[in-house]
């Protein structure tokens, strides 16, 4: 086992350096987006408030009169110090605004991720169990439909039918606005509001996972050890999940982790439909208000989040794949 730990730590360090390089590259891309845009870069750094004194301040701070390389260096220093700029719209630092909205989005995304993983894997396994059967074909059809409906369409339809028509769920927001709740009641209230958005966000993702799981399971189930397990008299569920799924799970985990970028965009759309107070809403409000500092801040945060998610996925993959242990 000593050889493995050594290999693993070498791998971790290499991936950490790569991720760091990627994040630095992202900051540079951010910088170039600001400067390639039409108009005065000041407006992108300071917002379009029009306050001349503030513009002077920003011009001096970012040394906009200097050559681009100097400006880039200053930009790096600011970002790495945690200074993402100031939002005139919200009268707060960009970092404060963005991080205050982050928990809501994380709650939505993590819940949706969990739901899509559980639902997708379950249906994928069921479909693969008897490939070609009615169960398989109905699940496949249902999956195709679920994958085709855009997330925001599904959200609006769910809101229309389940919330507005049947009154089963609240329509908007994360908490009831007219009641002051505490403790468990508050959490229940949040859960009630979370249900529809989380399921909506999870549907498309789980359809993709179901399909992937089915493919991988069909491959895994055709191996000899499955036949041996069945011959040994193991119950079918044990064969499917304990033996089949365990070997099929690896590519599924990888795709789940790497698909976070898609889930992020889904989150933006879902938050819009359900007025969920997260980063997605913030993004749209900022676009409307031309609050460029916040926009760039969200972009940077989202990109960094994806890099970190990819890193974690790779680390988990390396840990889980037994084939990589004895190289």
């Amino acid at each position: 086992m000593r050889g493995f730990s050594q290999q693993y730590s070498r791998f971790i360090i290499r991936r950490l350096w790569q991720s760091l390089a990627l994040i630095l590259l992202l900051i540079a891309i951010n910088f170039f987006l600001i400067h390639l845009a039409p108009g005065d870069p000041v407006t992108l750094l300071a917002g379009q408030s029009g306050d001349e004194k503030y513009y002077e301040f920003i011009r001096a701070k970012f040394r906009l009169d200097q050559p681009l390389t100097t400006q880039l260096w200053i930009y790096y220093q600011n970002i790495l110090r945690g200074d993402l700029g100031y939002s005139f719209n919200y009268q707060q630092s960009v970092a404060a605004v963005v991080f205050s909205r982050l928990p809501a989005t994380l709650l939505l995304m993590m819940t949706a991720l969990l739901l899509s993983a559980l639902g997708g894997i379950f249906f994928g396994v069921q479909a693969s169990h008897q490939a070609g059967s009615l169960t398989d074909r109905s699940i496949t059809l249902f999956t195709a439909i679920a994958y085709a409906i855009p997330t925001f369409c599904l959200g609006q339809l769910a809101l229309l039918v389940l919330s507005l028509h049947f009154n089963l769920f609240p329509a908007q927001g994360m908490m009831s606005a007219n009641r002051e709740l505490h403790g468990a009641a508050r959490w229940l209230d949040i859960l009630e509001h979370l249900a529809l958005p989380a399921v909506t966000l999870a549907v498309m993702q789980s359809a993709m996972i179901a399909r992937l799981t089915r493919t991988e399971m069909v491959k895994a189930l055709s191996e000899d050890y499955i036949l041996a397990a069945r011959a040994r008299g193991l119950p079918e569920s044990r064969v499917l999940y304990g033996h089949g799924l365990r070997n099929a799970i690896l590519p599924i985990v990888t795709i789940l982790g790497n698909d976070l970028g898609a889930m992020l965009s889904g989150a933006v759309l879902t938050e819009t439909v359900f007025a969920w107070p997260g980063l997605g809403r913030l993004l749209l409000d900022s676009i409307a208000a031309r609050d460029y500092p916040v926009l760039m801040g969200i972009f940077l945060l989202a990109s960094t989040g994806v890099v970190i998610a990819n890193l974690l996925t790779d680390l988990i993959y390396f840990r889980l794949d037994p084939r990589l242990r004895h190289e």
Partner: protein
Amino acid sequence: MEFWRTIKESKVAMAATLLLAFFLLLAIFAGQLAPRDPLKTGDKALQSPSGDYWFGTDDLGRDVFSGVIHGARTSISIGIIVALLSNLLGLAIGLVAGYASNWLDDLLMRFTELFLIPPRFFLILIIAAIYGSSYFNLILVLSLTLWPLTARLVRAEVLALKKRGFIEAARALGASHRRIMIREILPNILPLLITNAMLKIGTIILLEASLEFLGLGDPSQISWGYMLHSGQHYMRDGWWMVVFPSLAISLLLLALNLLGDELNKALDPKLRGRLT
């Protein structure tokens, strides 16, 4: 080509193709098929579906039925144009990179990966927000963010083809680089490229509709996403503003996905016997 055989043999592919043909006709003949100008506002706002207005009217009195038909034109035109542009660019870069396989390959691939680093949707959002979101801009932005995927795919295919040896043979016979790329490699990549383009059109239309739903569309063009954007505020009083465009988008995407899947299955011999 093999495509027609696949389509004829599979009921799913046949149904999907018919559905696609239907939408294509809607798009081409939108002007003739739509009873009214979809952008024309009227005073009969928020009318439920009736004999006069089959799909009802929206908050500004515009005919939803005509809107849905013209929306097909917007989405399909953007889908086809962007698929063409991004695939052409991706083909050019991927072909050269895969064929060259030296410093040129490395350079081109690093350049390609640069576009793949930021999350795609956010990149598009930011660019659309900064540069504006006219019809033309949308096409440009979508093409610029989608070509890297094709480039990578093409390059992988070219590398696989190179292993097969007939390219070496052509070189030995004295064929020029350009001739090899066009006469030998290209015909072998074409089927893959076309299938990929079909699946991509689905992605493009989804992206375009999402952008419009968020308000980043061209307001002078009626589109499904934009109709849903307006519909968001009137769900209580006008469910038809949401239901009909949603149905349209979902059906079109379903058809594209199903057809793309069937074509993919036909192209990949590994998948043929195993999964059914």
